[in-house]
């Protein structure tokens, strides 16, 4: 019976994403190609398939993998690389707990387990022709980076593109070189702010939502994507709505304690949904009623 349920579920998962090919509960071996620190407590791991370095990873922007530090545990980590670049995979990770601390100690050539990709993705296809407003805070830039790559690659298919990014201090800004190059190379309004700084910083200071005051987009034709700490997302969504963006056009990426990543275990239950299976990317209109319930 249980086997049948598993088979059925695997099939469902295949149908949904079209990407999972093997038993989603069994991790595959992947090798660390490179590991580098982005900031004092955020690092990026580049992974390749162990023994099959030319094998491709397939995922959609916004999806996540379960990374398994053998003997320690698994952690759900969003994929932060370009989904069209094959052969390797990037995960940008905030060193906050036991598993991520162990992952931060990995070296080139080390092997870890990987399950995935899992979850829903950023709604990029039906956003064509619309203005795009991305609001991210802290590590929240990482899960949206694949979506940003997609939009920049298909720039003409979208209207005005705005990226608003808030970090704690100038030292905590992720991918600073890449951000600079996006600004130079592409038609993008990119505004960065920090919560605090000394006098050496010449950019914006203040919470990320204040940057919306500088945005010139058509709220009637804007798709917004928001990722960051939940309280930041709450304020960002409130501000977007105040600026006239419709709830159904706002998407948020939620984070919960994900274990199985398949909707079996219930650890990441969020009202009637499971963040691992139905999320992590949700239309705000689907979670409006429960977004402000702090117990959830």
């Amino acid at each position, binding site marked *: 019976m249980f086997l049948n349920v598993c088979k059925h579920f695997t099939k469902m998962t295949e149908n949904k994403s079209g990407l999972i090919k093997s038993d989603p509960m069994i991790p595959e071996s992947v090798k660390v190609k490179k590991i580098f620190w982005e900031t004092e407590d955020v690092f990026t791991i580049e992974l390749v398939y162990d023994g099959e370095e030319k094998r491709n990873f397939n995922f959609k922007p916004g999806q996540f993998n379960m990374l398994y530090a053998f003997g320690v545990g698994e952690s759900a980590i969003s994929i932060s690389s370009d989904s069209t670049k094959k052969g390797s995979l990037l995960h940008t990770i905030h060193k*906050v707990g036991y598993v991520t601390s162990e992952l931060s100690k990995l070296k080139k050539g080390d092997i870890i387990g990987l399950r995935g990709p899992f979850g829903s993705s950023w709604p990029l296809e039906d956003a064509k022709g619309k203005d795009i407003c991305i609001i991210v805070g802290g590590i929240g830039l990482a899960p949206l980076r694949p979506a940003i790559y997609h939009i920049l690659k298909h720039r003409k298919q979208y209207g005005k593109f705005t990226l608003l990014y808030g970090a704690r201090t100038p030292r905590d800004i992720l991918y600073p070189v890449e951000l600079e190059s996006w600004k130079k190379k592409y038609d993008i309004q990119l505004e960065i702010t920090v*919560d*605090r700084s*000394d006098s050496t910083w010449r950019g914006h*200071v*203040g919470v990320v939502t*204040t940057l919306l005051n500088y945005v010139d987009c058509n709220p009637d034709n804007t798709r917004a994507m928001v990722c960051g700490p939940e309280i*930041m997302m709450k304020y960002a969504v409130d501000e977007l709505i105040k600026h006239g963006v419709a709830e159904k056009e706002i998407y948020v990426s939620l984070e919960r304690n994900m274990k199985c990543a398949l909707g079996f275990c219930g650890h990441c239950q969020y009202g009637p949904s499971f963040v691992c299976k139905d999320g992590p990317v949700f239309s705000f209109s689907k979670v409006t009623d429960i977004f402000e319930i702090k117990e959830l």
Partner: protein
Amino acid sequence: MEDLSGILRNHPFMKDLDENYLKQITGCASNVVYQEDEVLFKEGDKAEKFYLIRSGKVALEINGRDKGNLRILTIGPGQILGWSWIVSPYKWHFEAHALEEVRAIALDGECLRNKCEDDPKLGYEMLKRFAHILEQRLQSTRMQLLDVFKRV
């Protein structure tokens, strides 16, 4: 070239303001330009003006004494700099300096206060608009206090 009342009319702070009020306010306005790093006002100085920023960016800093200057906010195009002109004892709580060339409309605080005293409807309109800004600044400050990106 756009005249002062035209510039004021197009600033977001003055959106949908009655033409008659706009005319009154224009009488208290002047065009100002500050060069990069120029100080607009210092903490403790008399708050005689407020500014409607047209272009450029202004940094607000608080003197943390032994902690040095802490930058708490930047204010850019379309925003308002300064509300101390409306609250007694009319003194600045922060230092403001231009991060780049700043173009703004300066409003004389005493001139506008007198007009508001003479015409309470204008005074109420101004207070409503400033209350909105104060609410936004208060919310932003609360968010900063939460320190949501703090390292753990």
